[in-house]
């Protein structure tokens, strides 16, 4: 089962190394990981998606908490958080296919960032599932490049972790 762990850490060199090192040596598998600074410049938020059972996730949480630079750890409840991922996708496009691609973009809410005689580059921010769908729809046109950020997430409502 995929679970989203939100981690607040000291914004210092080497912290990410400690976190990823911990995952590899405890044999926990990371599905995706995204890092960015919070509104407090001394704190970064790391959003980690793991695909594991509850007992593994509990152990991940505890081991993360043991790291001195980790300030807070929370496994987000599936139904009560907003998780989004950004994708930039470049696809082959010519006069014949461009309109079809644009239609899909419209349906999925993707934005065109760049155009050339032979390609279209689009961005889409959405849930990982919808990004997968968009990517699948683009595949017949021959995808040139894909970049995805990994999910970032916050809880719904007024609370914070």
């Amino acid at each position, binding site marked *: 089962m995929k679970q989203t762990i939100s981690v607040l850490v000291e914004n210092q060199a*080497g912290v990410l*190394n*400690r976190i990823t*090192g911990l995952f590899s*040596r405890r044999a926990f598998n990371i599905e995706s990981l995204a890092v960015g600074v919070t509104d407090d410049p001394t704190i970064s938020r790391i959003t980690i998606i793991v695909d594991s059972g509850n007992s593994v996730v*509990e*152990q991940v949480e505890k081991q993360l908490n*043991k790291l*001195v630079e*980790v300030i807070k750890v929370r496994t987000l409840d599936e139904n009560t958080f907003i998780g989004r991922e950004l994708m930039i996708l470049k696809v082959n496009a010519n006069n014949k296919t461009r309109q079809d691609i644009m239609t899909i973009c419209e349906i999925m809410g993707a934005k065109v960032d760049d155009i050339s005689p032979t390609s279209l580059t689009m961005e889409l921010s959405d849930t990982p599932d919808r990004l997968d769908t968009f990517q699948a729809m683009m595949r017949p046109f021959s995808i040139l490049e894909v970049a995805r950020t990994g999910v970032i997430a916050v809880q719904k409502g007024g609370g914070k972790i």
Partner: protein
Amino acid sequence: MNGAQALIESLLQEQVDHIFGYAGATICPAVDALKEHPEIGYTLVRTEQNAGHMASGYARVSGKVGVCMVTSGPGATNLITGIATAYMDSIPMVAITGQVPSSQLGRDIFQEVDITGAVAPFSKHSYLVKDANEIPRIVKEAFHIASTGRPGPVLIDIPIDIQNQEVKHFHYPEEVNIRGYKPSVKGNELQIKRVAEAISRSKQPVILAGGGVWLANARTELLELAERCSIPVIKTMMGISLMPTGHPLNLGMIGAHGNHCANKALAKADLLIMVGTRAADRAVIDPGEIQRRMATIHIDVDPAEIGKNMQAAIPLVGDVKVILQQLLDRNITPPDSAAWLERLRDYRKAELGRVFPKREGYVFPGTVLRKLGAKLADDAAVCVDVGQNQIFTCKYLPQKNGRLLTSGGLGTMGYALPAAVGVKVAQPDRQTVVVCGDGSFQMSMNELAAVKCAGMDLKIVLFQNQVLGLVNQIQRTAPYHGPFGVALDGSPDFPAIAAAYGIPSLTVSDEDKLDETLDRFLGSEGCCLLICRVHPDVSTTD
């Protein structure tokens, strides 16, 4: 004042009175600053790994943080095994390493290695110092982190230019405030109540005590709880010396290499109370089975231990000493365990009365250890190595009120001799004995130099069977096809080695002469090496 002087000044603020180390180019400023402070003792090791083990022995008997200091590159990598050994046994330690100039970091210059990166998996925390003005805060934090919560090694890596950087205003902080580090101390009252009720309700309770009890300095509380509630106690290797062998509630060590009676008690209990132990594979072979068969309580300072190897029914996180006191304060109604104790007493009697095999021209380690233990001082410290010598000692050495120190977690051969040096540095008057095999002794016998320098009266028992005994034993069972690469051919003449360091030795190969030889050995002045000839086929299951 420069960074190096700020470092030594900070160590003085932490009441450091001894450093185990090995100098090299990049740590020279710190060594130079140390020279000005004869109040801090210094032991020059012969290889850096042993600086870690000495600091460990020192820390374990003194309760203080052990300190070692080595140079960059190979000095730092040699120390790694010492750090990992300390980490696996949760020993409070601060390791200081020199580093190449910060402007050159990452260029693979002479004696450069990313030591903070290398020790990340087996250190509690580490620092790479980038500004000498940060040294007081970092040292304060390092000692705090190393010694609180679940103790462990912390490394401080200091580039040589930072050691030479001017520190404008030295101020040693009074307090530590790390927002991501707040170890729990007190146990949750509701859980305490549940534990108390579970104990009262049980019929066949057993306490499993580990090294965490020593680390929390909670031996008195543990014994009091066991005695008040008449709960028998089994121990892991790290907790072995928590109780005298003759104590009516003591059932010995559990595990694959443990005492039969202890394993029987664990298998038949209806309530298992784990205190300061992680229940690793060598101690608890099948945690799943234990969970299915009995109620379990897990008391530990590290929340990550709860549910890591075993999912306890009642977890209780906090300082073991504080929690045991909370339990004692509850005046728990003792369980009705008379029948249970009666049964266990018979098991224990059979174990202690075990008759050891005899072989002409050799001594059996169990026989030696039984006699040795009886002759030791009440508070003697015994440092034991890894291999058959460790198993025999943990199983058969009679415990009084002293300490048994061994590398229980990592199982590092060569631990015993340097650890004993650390014990002697911390407590020069304490009777200290090393037990090792001819394999492990050869891994650290170069440290006899430290013994000689300080004129330490260490007593070293060397079981010489001319083979790596425990590996030999494993190789002789399926699926392996017999011993290979374990014969210790080419071993030196040990009495001659000892003599080269000015240390006298005795050799015994006749059990009838054991008493007399042991008396001479223990009664001798200064350090002495006792070589016990053991048959190469001897097994720990004999």
